[in-house]
């Protein structure tokens, strides 16, 4: 008579607890996948009828009128504004972020490195609506001088043509840079901290200065990580809603295609947010959801590329 039994005398049934629990974990995973799939699906379902009814080309028109029965909407203008704000943010945030990451990992003394990193992370914790408030009410007035200068000196160039609005693409880009900085810093920091000590010491042993060591050992090693960090920051920038809504002045409808960074406008996100009140019928709602779908695809692609870049590097690590 075997004495190898379980506590209640069971003898080797496939454990019920393990099956249930493993099944539960699997179910959670399936749910997560379903969420993302359904997001795309439902957005498409709501958007497609409106896009089909669109009287102008969805991709190339700059008009936006979501009257049911007379849908005339195109994303070209909001695409331009979205890209402009994101580009300005990236131009500022990527060098600043990499610089900060280098400061935190290569320059800061040990007692400073962790608190300093926490400070940058706290920047990420501030809600976007507070950034918006501060951006338009406190920060923007300080920039009027600079903007007027740009307008006067470079006004012939389409990016800086006037007249200068109160809440401009330019200001929003700078504020967005501050919002996106912590993500870029955090990811770059992680990658720089993993630089093999052997590479760094090898450079120093050749008589390199600290900056030269960084250029030879740290930056090349971290290149993929920085690219990935920048793309994640870009994804965040593309999707920012309330800060942009608050800061950027709206433009009169029917104003034609405008390109100036010193004027207002709407991004995908802010256009949707500004018009949430028009969601009372399927046709209008569909137009805005179409814009949301484009934003979803954009951020999906950017995020996927970012992960692919970092994973390919890991394969060679």
């Amino acid at each position, binding site marked *: 008579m075997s004495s190898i039994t379980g506590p209640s005398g069971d003898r080797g049934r496939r454990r019920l607890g393990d099956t249930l629990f493993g099944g539960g974990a699997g179910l959670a995973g399936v749910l*997560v996948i379903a969420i993302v799939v359904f997001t795309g699906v439902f957005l498409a379902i709501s958007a497609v009828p409106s896009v089909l009814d669109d009287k102008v080309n969805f991709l190339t028109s700059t008009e936006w009128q979501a009257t049911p029965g007379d849908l005339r909407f195109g994303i070209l203008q909001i695409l331009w504004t979205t890209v402009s704000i994101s580009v300005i943010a990236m131009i500022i945030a990527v060098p600043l972020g990499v610089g900060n990451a280098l400061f935190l990992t290569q320059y800061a003394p040990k007692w400073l490195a962790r608190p300093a990193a926490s400070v940058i992370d706290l920047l990420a914790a501030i809600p976007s609506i507070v950034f918006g408030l501060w951006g338009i009410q406190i920060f923007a007035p300080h920039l009027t001088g600079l903007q007027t200068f740009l307008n006067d000196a470079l006004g012939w160039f389409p990016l800086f043509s006037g007249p200068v609005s109160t809440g401009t693409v330019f200001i929003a880009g700078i504020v967005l840079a501050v919002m996106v900085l912590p993500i870029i810093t955090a990811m770059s920091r992680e990658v720089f901290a993993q630089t093999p000590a052997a590479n760094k010491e090898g450079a120093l042993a050749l008589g390199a200065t600290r900056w030269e060591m960084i250029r030879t050992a740290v930056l090349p090693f971290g290149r993929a990580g920085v690219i990935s960090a920048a793309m994640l920051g870009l994804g965040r920038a593309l999707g920012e809603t309330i800060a942009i809504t608050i800061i950027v002045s709206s433009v009169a409808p029917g104003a034609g295609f405008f390109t100036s960074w010193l004027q207002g406008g709407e991004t995908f996100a802010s256009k949707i947010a500004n018009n949430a009140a028009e969601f009372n019928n399927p046709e209008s709602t569909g137009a805005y959801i179409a814009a949301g779908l484009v934003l979803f695809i954009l951020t999906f692609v950017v995020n996927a590329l970012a992960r692919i870049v970092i994973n390919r590097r890991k394969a060679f690590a």
Partner: protein
Amino acid sequence: MSALQTPERELPAALADSRGQGGRKVRNTIATVVMVLAFVIAVIPLVWILWTVIEKGASLLVDSTWWLNSQRGITPRIVGGGAYHAIVGTLLQALATAVIAVPLGIMSAILLVEYGASRIARVVSFTVDILSGLPSIVAALFIYAFWVTTLGFSRSGFAVSLSLVLLMVPVVVRSTEEMLKLVPNELREASYALGVPKWKTIVMIVLPTAFSGILTGVLLGLARIMGETAPLLILVGYSQSINMDLFSGNMAALPLMINNDRQQALEPAVERVWAAALTLVLIVLVLNIAGRAIARFSSLRK
């Protein structure tokens, strides 16, 4: 050639193209200054924003009226009322979100770490990455299309919670996953060797060991979603009175309270907007700091 004479070594490009000793030193110093400057530039907005909210909003917060009253009956012209309705609304929505997102996130992380060899685990990992980059407005639109348009429910605080779940799950999954990976495999083996089945090992040994890290992830996730505005704009209307019913009617929340009056010029309204902003910042910062502090006292270190 004597054995002691070594041939000229190839210097790496960064060293070879510098223009003489003096130039190298100068460039090193410039680089150092630039890096320190980068940090200072990053810190300035943080300090500036915190200073602004505190300076403009603190006066209302020291009064108990702020914490105990709603905005019922208050117009932009009138001084008075408080943020109770908004604070309660924010907390209730966050609670509803956490109730769904935390179990879902923890079980998904368990799938990724404890059952990581399965094919589904890789797909889930990729999906979590996508979710962490999902803009809040897209999450809100999805819930609108799904919950309101297709299923026919009305806009409500609960709809907001649903969209916030999409934003909180990736935070919980990633931090839980990191923590579970830090639990040494030897502990799992010790448990199996005692004749404990896998599920009990996970629930009674692995999870408690990773507990403080998981808690940190939850707190940081909560901090993130409490500051989100876009879902509120799309999925619920603002109410100046207290409404504790997540499932019907307009509800208040701190971001909505701020948004409602942000274009007002009248002094009482302006003051309340900044006070609400300060309240929100305080809650979010407390959660953040608590979360990071707990991580420091964890029994697992990286």
